[in-house]
């Protein structure tokens, strides 16, 4: 115990000292403080100290990446809570689902939130992929981050598919039976893959525990790891994509509001940043340090970037909450391995596949999806152009844009047919 201060003053100062030991910087009010807060905080320091004004245009990114991550956070939180009551056993799983709505406080709400956030994440992650494609943002130097993104999209589908089985109702049981049978059409290894996945020849207890472990541990861990790499690479690849001539002096007309200091930054944007020095804070900004008379169109991440991200997160939470309060997550009768419902349908995002599978199981379920995923993975290594990067639907990329849109529309049409126009025996029906 310090003799020079005494115990009483130390106790009196304890709350303030404790607070300051956690939060080294007060809420920033100067540019230096903004930099330091961003730089010194574990959760903020994945962001750059300053962000390019182009990256903050709402209609450029639409915040889809942040929304996808927000949904992952919501799913992790609700999923962890649901784990306290769920039992991955064929005897108990369905009863536990009923208990969630009957005996667990907020059980229904949590399950609804988890279900709608999961569907939302599949949709938002895919829209994010579309955004990156249509703006040509996968091109060099961002090839690898695109690959990581495609893997994250596949993991999202995997997380959703494994979670689909867990309620152990009729919908779950037959969707997984159909889905894993598609895997068995893969040449040579197909039957083995299905057997490894299910741990048995049919969907049963072994499949349930395997899907459970994949759903609550393996896939979330893989997603977390890849998300960290994904975020890190944004920084290392020089921030979000933007037109390459954006910071040329003649392009300054694009940012009148920034030039006039109207972006509410306490830092008025320097028209030209003269002879920057390479301090540690500057180095963190990556390869966009410029020495000399080059325009600087960056703004401080605190508050501009953080407010935008906070708003996206809040919006996602609000939408999920409202959806969970208004719409019940479906729960059918307990799984009955002897009676498939007619028709048996996969989750909506796989209904395009199921529709193709009804024509040819190999091409619909294995061939075309494999070709499509390989094409996505190879895309940035085949498209080596640079004109039109950072702009939506650039006319320099009209071939790529048209092809992608065509495939998108075909898949969408197939999903709509599979969802609404397929009745008993998978016969075409008119829904009205």
């Amino acid at each position: 115990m310090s003799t020079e201060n005494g115990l009483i003053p130390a106790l009196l100062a304890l709350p303030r000292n404790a607070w300051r030991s956690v939060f080294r910087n007060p809420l920033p009010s100067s540019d230096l403080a903004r930099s330091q807060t961003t730089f010194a905080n574990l959760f903020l320091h994945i962001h750059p100290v300053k962000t390019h004004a182009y990256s903050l245009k709402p209609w450029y990114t639409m915040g889809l990446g942040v929304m996808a991550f927000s949904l992952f956070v919501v799913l992790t939180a609700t999923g962890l809570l649901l784990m306290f009551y769920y039992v991955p056993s064929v005897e108990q799983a369905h009863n536990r689902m009923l208990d969630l709505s009957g005996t667990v406080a907020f059980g229904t709400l949590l399950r609804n939130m988890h279900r709608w956030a999961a569907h939302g994440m599949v949709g938002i992650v895919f829209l994010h992929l579309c955004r990156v494609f249509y703006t040509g943002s996968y091109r060099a130097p961002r090839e690898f981050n695109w690959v990581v993104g495609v893997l994250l999209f596949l993991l999202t589908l995997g997380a959703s598919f494994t979670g689909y089985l867990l309620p152990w109702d009729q919908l779950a049981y037959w969707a997984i039976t159909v889905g894993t049978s598609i895997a068995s059409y893969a040449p040579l290894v197909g039957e083995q893959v299905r057997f490894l996945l299910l741990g048995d020849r049919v969907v049963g207890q072994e499949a349930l525990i395997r899907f459970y472990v994949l759903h609550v541990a393996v896939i979330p861990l893989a997603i977390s790891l890849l998300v960290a790499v994904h975020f890190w690479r944004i920084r290392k690849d020089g921030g979000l994509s933007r037109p390459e001539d954006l910071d040329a002096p003649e392009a300054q007309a694009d940012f009148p509001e920034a030039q006039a200091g109207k972006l509410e930054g306490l830092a008025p944007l320097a028209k030209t940043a003269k002879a920057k020095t390479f301090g540690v804070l500057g180095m963190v900004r990556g390869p966009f340090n410029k020495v000399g008379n080059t325009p600087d169109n960056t703004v401080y991440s605190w508050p501009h970037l953080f407010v935008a991200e906070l708003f996206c997160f809040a919006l996602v939470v609000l939408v999920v909450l409202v959806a969970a309060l208004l719409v019940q997550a479906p729960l059918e009768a307990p799984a009955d391995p002897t009676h498939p419902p007619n028709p048996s349908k996969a989750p909506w995002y796989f209904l395009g596949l199921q529709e193709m599978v009804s024509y040819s199981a190999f091409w619909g379920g294995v061939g075309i999806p494999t070709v499509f995923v390989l094409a996505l993975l190879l895309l940035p290594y085949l498209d080596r152009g640079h004109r039109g990067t950072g702009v939506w639907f650039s006319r320099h990329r009209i071939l790529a844009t048209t092809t992608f849109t065509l495939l998108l529309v075909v898949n969408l049409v197939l999903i709509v047919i599979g969802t609404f126009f397929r009745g008993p025996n998978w016969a075409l029906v008119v829904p009205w």
Partner: protein
Amino acid sequence: MTTRTSPGEPPPDGRLTRRRALTLTSVFGLLGAGLVAGLSNLLFFRPRVTYGEPSRFRVGKPEAFPLGARLPLSRQRCTVIRTESGMAAISNTCTHLGCVVATTEVGFDCPCHGSRFDPDGTVLGGPAPRPLTWFRLSLSPSGEVEVDTAEAVPTGTFLKV
């Protein structure tokens, strides 16, 4: 490639130093361990026993099946038939995507993607790529008919009774 060494670090002269030996041992040791672990995991994930329905089961004496009988067994996923040629067991698992087919008067219908089969399990229509599997039948010492769903036999293989 030449590497500039920091002060205190011996110049790289190609000799096997202790550090180099430790690095190589660690790297290749871990690579080997990773490879062995990966292969072991393949074996680990492949169950040696399964806990579902047993593949061999008895369905009763032949006399219990009148001529023309078609008895679907929902738990075991097969239909036991008796014709003039003898008895047989036809799988109820659709060869398309593993749904359970419904046994009807005129064959089998799959509810998932609309495959149709004739009474012998031959494909009549729909996306099913193969006819329904026939399972081996045998007579147990007690005179009961025993089905083995782990063993397939060619279509038209009847057990004479």
